[in-house]
């Protein structure tokens, strides 16, 4: 029984620099990196030493407390460096890519004949498990739990997000194999949610063994958290697993070929990028080659992921494990004079969800927004603005306040189990008082995990 959901709340931030639907080839990167920091809460235990050779699919570290979860090398090469931060925390594991890469030669694994337990073991040992994330808490799934459902979103509604219809076009087989494997992991359903506003690619519409739902509305319609809330909400004690659509294809590829081939198509986007377009890359690829001679201005911020939830990286940094796009926006570290570009200015260059700037009159203009906070942090003053962009039956401001005050009882009562930081990204964007809401929610989730899970 498929569901159709219409959202009335939300916000599409109209940014310049959407990727053209063209794919360019990029050379094999010289270095790839797996960042343990991409997996929230992970304490890695290294399995390989610096200087040792690794092959694609070989575990390089594992979860210290959940040793069955392996994190594998995406390439053949040698372990170049383990970059550590404060308290010797491992930030990056860099691997020099060797010249010989072979992605052929494996044997297909028949999913249909396997039990759920076998699929789980296969995925764990093959390094596919980190692709599966769980709600609540929004971390890599706990393999000891059984989820009541698995959710896959067939589109990404974030600003400048890649078009999954384009990215996964023609990858029906891999995607279907991935869905079949996921279907074994749950007693419940696998939900595939399509964009109700646009026709979806056959990869999605012809998917078998899943419940196909439709959701239409502005961002965060494409967020899997929004979809879960409206289709099969999480109660305390329940688990739902989520997998990104491209990662479903990577999982499927493993079962079809017997090989870990972490290739995905990412979109290079943003107002400061010359000729934004799509490209096939490896997970954890070095972005230096991709970005070479691409910037249209000097003072820029490179983001792995989208502008709302992504991670700031250097121009020679590395693509995040879950990210499907790279965004480059202008850095906003200049003073802005009050009457021209500041708080009393006309504001023709400002995009706002409030009607305090004349730009709300133009419904289609696209903006070049920089990273300036556009104000200073204050206590909450304005009410009602978060609700406008938060399509949940949850009171966002009250929940954030509960998270700020470490109030576990109220967080539970107000629905902390249903949300992930990314669901609050728009709230953070519109907040007049510039509070880092995603951070507060993450802190709240950490507390919940520590005390209640």
């Amino acid at each position, binding site marked *: 029984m498929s569901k159709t959901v219409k959202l009335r709340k939300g916000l599409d*931030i109209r940014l310049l620099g959407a990727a053209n639907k063209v794919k360019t080839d990029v050379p094999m990167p010289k270095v790839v990196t797996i960042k343990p920091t991409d997996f929230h809460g992970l304490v890695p235990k290294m399995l390989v030493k610096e200087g040792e050779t690794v092959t694609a699919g070989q575990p390089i570290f594992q979860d210290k407390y959940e040793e069955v979860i392996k994190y594998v090398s995406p390439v053949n090469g040698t372990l170049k460096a383990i970059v550590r931060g404060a308290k010797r925390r491992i930030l990056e594991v860099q691997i020099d890519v060797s010249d010989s890469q072979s992605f052929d030669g494996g044997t297909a694994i028949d999913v249909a004949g396997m039990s759920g337990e076998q699929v789980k073991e296969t995925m764990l040992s093959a390094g596919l498990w980190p692709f599966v994330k769980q709600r609540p808490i929004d971390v890599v799934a706990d393999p000891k739990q059984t989820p009541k459902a698995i959710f896959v979103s067939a589109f990404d509604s974030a600003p400048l997000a890649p078009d999954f219809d384009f990215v996964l076009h023609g990858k029906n087989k891999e995607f279907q194999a991935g869905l079949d494997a996921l279907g074994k992991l749950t007693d419940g359903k696998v939900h595939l949610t399509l964009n109700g506003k646009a026709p979806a690619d056959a990869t999605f519409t012809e998917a078998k063994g899943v419940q196909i739902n439709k959701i239409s509305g502005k961002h965060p319609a494409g967020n899997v958290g929004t979809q879960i809330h409206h289709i099969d909400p999480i*109660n305390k004690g329940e688990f739902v697993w989520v997998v990104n659509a491209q990662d479903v294809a990577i999982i499927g590829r493993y079962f079809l070929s017997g090989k870990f081939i972490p290739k995905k198509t990412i979109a290079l986007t943003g107002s400061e990028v010359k000729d934004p377009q799509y490209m096939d890359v490896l997970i954890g690829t070095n972005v230096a080659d991709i970005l070479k001679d691409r910037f249209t201005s000097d003072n820029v*911020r490179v983001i792995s992921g989208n502008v*709302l*939830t*992504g991670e*700031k990286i250097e121009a020679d940094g590395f693509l995040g494990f879950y990210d499907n796009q790279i965004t480059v*926006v202008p*850095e*906003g*570290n*200049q*003073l802005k*004079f*009050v009457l*021209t*570009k*500041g*708080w*009393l200015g006309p504001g023709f260059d400002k*995009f*706002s*969800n*409030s*009607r*305090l700037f004349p730009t709300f009159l133009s419904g289609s203009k696209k903006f070049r*927004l*920089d*990273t*300036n*906070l*556009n*104000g*200073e942090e*204050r*206590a*909450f*003053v*304005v*009410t*009602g603005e978060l*609700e406008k962009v938060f399509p949940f*039956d949850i*009171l966002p*401001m009250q929940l954030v306040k509960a998270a700020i005050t470490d109030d576990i009882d109220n967080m539970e*009562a*107000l629905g902390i189990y249903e949300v992930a*930081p990314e669901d609050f*990204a*728009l709230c*953070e*964007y*519109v*907040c*007049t008082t*510039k509070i*880092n*809401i*995603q*951070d507060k929610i993450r802190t709240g989730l950490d507390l919940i995990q520590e005390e209640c899970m």
Partner: protein
Amino acid sequence: MKFLEKIVHKQEPKFAKGGKFEKWNPVFESFLTLAFTPNHTTKRGSHIRDGVDLKRTMVTVIFAMIPALLFGMYNAGHWDLAVEMGSRDIPFWADQGTKIWRGAMIVVPMIIVSYGAGLTVEFIFALRRGHALHEGFLVSGMLIPLIMPADVPLWMVAVATIFAVIIGKEIFGGTGMNILNIALTARAFLFFAYPTSMSGDKVWMSGLEETGGIDGFSGATALGDAASFMTDKMTVAGDVVTSETAVSAFENNYSLMDSMIGMIPGSIGETSFIAIMIGAAILLFTGVGSLRIMASFFAGGWLMGIVLNAVGGNPYFDLGAEYHLLIGGFAFGAVFMATDPVTAAQTNIGKLIYGFLAGVVAILIRVLNPAYPEGVMLAILFMNVMAPIIDHYVVQANVKRRMKRLKTA
């Protein structure tokens, strides 16, 4: 503005940590952020942010108050002149230059005193806490003069402002933390501490107090007159009359049109319904003011007026419900006071209940309590205190919905 930027960059190190004027950094910061949106960038989470900030939000409220302020100035000047002429019946739109000048001489000093006193306190607290000035007082500082009677001494404005900022706001932690509306706290303080300067028949027109009263000249406001209806035996010009005659005598004195335009005595900013509605339009158009609160506040007041009409019995009960919305501080309270987001209810449903009850209570106090000719101030302060309770029940309803889902699942 490069030269200003150069100055800033040159002075910045002196105020930075370890600099010569480190202690004064909050003051420097306050002025810097007034002149420039600072160069703070996002660190984590959302890398781009909405263009709106608290300064722009607050300044919009000030813009919305300007029509009421300008009209209030003119009106204060008018009644000042009327006192000097010894007649309430001088034409309203004549002698405009004199009236504007006199009005400005009454209102501008009040604004200066209010901002001066309030900002001094704010800066002291900002320095103690080591943060830049927060924007909340920009609005409060303008609201305070607008809800004062024309004849209030300036020192009272200063005392009330200081009291309101310290007791109403800073002891709770500053902007965004207060329970009661700051401007109304200032007014309530004066109302109870210096009742003779805040109510009665002599305070609404500048200079009337000093004359010691003029024969045959009343300085009463519409509300003051209406409140006199509550006595057992109504008199108009010395004769005992029926309720109907009393109401029609009132309506002659204060026609709906006069109250609409605001050509009646009263607190500086409250008299002109039209000027306030221009402000309301600005607030609603920009989305700064809550339509839920404004509309439900008017609805509550109007319904209470209707109920009182139905009960009847004395002239004040019989006064048309629409009058209640136009006279006194009702409209001003609805648009600028009840909508204060910090002290109002914070949930969308809560806002409706909060506004409605505030409107009901305002008219209830106004008509039924002979001690207080105006109920709006007290009603809003009362509902400020009640707002968290309203929110509590709205939040519990949301929580219960989630619990129910768990049971059925």
